[in-house]
């Protein structure tokens, strides 16, 4: 949070910077992908359709992104980097964003109506919010 910490962390050694930048890019990509998934499943709900195979492939892609993010985040911590707002919160949000979409996906398997699609769409929006929070937690 302190203003003196921000500048130091922003200008680091090149190797560290690369992985740190990777995490930022991943956060952005995952957030955008989550919103796209939300729009797609929202569209399905609007047209009164349940989630279909293609939606599940979309969910798998988003989940894969969050998994990569989880791994990269843990690697960052193992390298001794410290998230601005604390390690515990950072890991909790990483795990939360990993579980978010699959949980809704499983629920939509049991609800073969538009409401299943809308639940997955909601999970996409929640994941996008989690990504914004993750960025804040990491960068301060």
């Amino acid at each position: 949070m302190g203003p003196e910490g921000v500048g130091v962390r922003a200008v680091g050694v090149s190797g560290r910077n690369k992985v740190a930048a990777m995490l930022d890019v991943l956060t952005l990509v995952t957030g955008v992908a989550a919103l796209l998934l939300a729009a797609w499943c929202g569209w399905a709900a609007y047209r009164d359709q349940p989630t279909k195979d293609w939606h599940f492939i979309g969910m798998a892609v988003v989940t894969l992104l969050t998994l990569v993010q989880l791994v990269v985040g843990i690697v960052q911590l193992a390298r001794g980097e410290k998230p601005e707002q604390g390690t515990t919160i950072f890991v909790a949000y990483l795990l939360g964003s990993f579980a978010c979409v699959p949980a809704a996906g499983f629920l939509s398997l049991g609800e073969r109506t538009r409401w299943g699609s809308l639940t997955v769409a909601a999970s996409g929006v929640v994941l996008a919010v989690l990504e914004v929070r993750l960025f804040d937690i990491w960068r301060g």
Partner: protein
Amino acid sequence: MAATRERTRQEPRRTRLVGGPGLLLVWLYGVMVVGAVSRSAYQIATEFGRAPLAYTLSALAGLVYGFITYTLVRGGETARRAALVCCAAELVGVLTIGTWTLVEPSAFPDATVWSEYGMGYLFIPVLLPLTALYWLRAARPRTAGA
């Protein structure tokens, strides 16, 4: 035959509350449970002295969310009524705490889940009980002749 009769005697008794829009509600309540419980647990464990009132209220909110999620998943008329009462309490809680945080911010050095009507959570805390109350009333058993 005996088995089927027993089944039919038990099953229709419980109104299913997680079908259709109820599924979305359960999912959102689940998110709020995770959010409120983990947040308050972390804050109470690490920095309780900073804002005891705010953290205690967050924990209370987490408990209420947990109970509502349980009743929704369980289903049935008793659970439906219990959920109705809790959702009403939740709405009163959000409105009270929301107003309280606006009128007297000094009482809250740190935010609660219900601060400013749940603005930090996309206003889900205030929208959720309204939607849930509507849904739970719509799920009234038909035989009651509503």
